[in-house]
């Protein structure tokens, strides 16, 4: 897709001068960036570079010391996770976060039901909130169709990761933040995960922000990459640019 046309619209996510310290440690230092509609942005950096802290500040899990975060130009600092989700922000967690004792189908439905109908219709309406078909489509899309009625906890790790991601999409969000989606997933699974994410992005124009350790995965998935080191942005650009960037290499080699 061509960037200029996208720039016309307001950024999906704006982060301005975000800072967060734990005692003496300044985990995030005055970070600012925009995320454009439909792009796949990668956030990378060596361990302890502040990726996760930044992520949690954006999502309101942590209260930043300073700075502002806005979704579609609307400030979201301090709003609850559920409100954020209703604003069309989906997320996944670093550690597996499926509901192990519920079936795959239920996992997906619960991810969408709060966006359908009212409190009352959710009590007196159909038990599946009329979402079964939509859910099954999404499950199919993530190639989990044959497991729809298995308990999520009985799936393989990779499958659970897929499910975890799928849940973030059920509500049809405009922006999805993926926290280390590739973590601990085997190569074949990784391939299909990446392929699925790219397809989804192409089909729905959904914006992604991805935190990842796995360089190859990020490089091949993202259209743009921001590199953090010691809590500050040290580089930004296309995968190619980043590959070539000396500062990044230094940072990773512990320069």
């Amino acid at each position, binding site marked *: 897709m061509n960037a200029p046309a996208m720039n016309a619209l307001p950024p999906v996510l704006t982060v301005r001068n975000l800072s967060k310290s734990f005692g003496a440690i300044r985990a995030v230092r005055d970070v600012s960036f925009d995320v454009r509609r439909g792009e796949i942005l990668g956030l990378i950096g060596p361990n302890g570079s502040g990726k996760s802290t930044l992520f949690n500040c954006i999502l309101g899990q942590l209260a930043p010391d300073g700075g502002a975060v806005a979704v579609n130009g609307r400030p979201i600092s301090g709003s609850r996770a559920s409100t954020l989700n209703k604003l069309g922000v989906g997320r996944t967690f670093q550690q597996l*976060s499926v509901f192990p*004792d519920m079936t795959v189908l239920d996992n997906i439905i*619960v991810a969408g*039901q*709060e966006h359908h109908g009212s*409190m009352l219709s*959710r009590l007196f*309406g159909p*038990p599946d909130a009329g979402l079964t078909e939509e859910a099954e489509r999404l499950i199919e899309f993530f190639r989990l169709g044959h497991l729809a009625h298995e308990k999520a906890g*009985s799936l393989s790790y990779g499958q659970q990761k897929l499910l975890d991601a799928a849940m973030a999409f059920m509500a049809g969000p405009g922006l999805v933040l993926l926290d280390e989606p590739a973590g601990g997933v085997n190569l074949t699974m990784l391939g299909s995960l990446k392929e699925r994410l790219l397809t989804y992005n192409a089909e729905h124009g959904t914006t992604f922000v991805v935190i990842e350790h796995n360089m190859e995965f990020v490089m091949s998935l993202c259209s743009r990459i921001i590199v953090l080191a010691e809590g500050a942005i040290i580089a930004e650009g296309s995968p190619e640019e980043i590959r070539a960037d000396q500062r990044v290499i230094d940072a990773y080699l512990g320069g």
Partner: protein
Amino acid sequence: MRRYRTPLLLALGLAALIVAPIGQGNYIVYTLCSWLIFSIAATGLNLTLGYAGQISLAQASFMAIGAYITALMTLNGVHWLLAMPCSMLACFAVGLALGFPALRVQGHFLAFVTLAFNTLVFLVLRNEDWLTGGVYGLVGMERPGFGLFDTSKQLHFYYFTVAVFAVALAGMWWIVRSPWGRAFKALRENPIRAESLGVDTRRLTLLAFAIGSAYGGLAGALVAPLVQFIEPGSFALVHSLRLLLMVVVGGAGFFFGPVLGAAVVILLPEVLRFTEGYYLILYAGSVIVLMVFCPTGLIGVYGRLRQRLFPQRVVRGDMATGPQL
């Protein structure tokens, strides 16, 4: 075959309930009635505790509210069928009012607030004797009649109770299967994830508590005509703890846990009675042992055995730990 197993067993259970009292003495029929009634109250508490993960120590006082409202209305000639919903509504409303401030705050303040509330209700019931009859309580409530079917006979009343019990459980079954129920489960297994998927955990918890309280009210509405005498002492804090015991011993968060728990809590003293004065000690002792070795209660024990046999089945999120404070 698997598909028909559940309805089949439920049908069997219902059949068992119907034949259970035949040829039994009044005492056993009476005990069965109170077992069913406490099962209803415990099932309500289970929604609050097992599904929404909040501790309520006031279930007995909701039974009290239900019982007194029903008693006062029926004594003034209102039919039970009208008094019962009033009792449930009142408890629902009180539940909302009580839960709102407590659930606003982090942590488990609902437990503390309800603890205080239970004793307050007791004091009001005892001191406002112009309304509640004070320490002497209220006496002589008629048992409801339905045209040809009059429940004043112990056995008739039992079947009446079975009917209400069945309806109440069906209602709970519906709630648990509805999107709400799914949200409750999600809440229990991973609240943070649930919140991130748009589940308004705070509101849901409040509603769970209010509905649970309404079930307490329903149980109360049955206690009044069963005992035909109610006084404050029967709804003191210790009875709330007893209900809590039923839920946890049976298995919090399992649909039939409270029913099983109620059976155990009501019958175990009966079975242990031959040990004379020591049965309360043994009884409490065995509860401690159960809690230490299987925090998820009796159904949890079953679940663990099952784990051994079919390892591919996964344990519920909090199976290992039991509901958390």
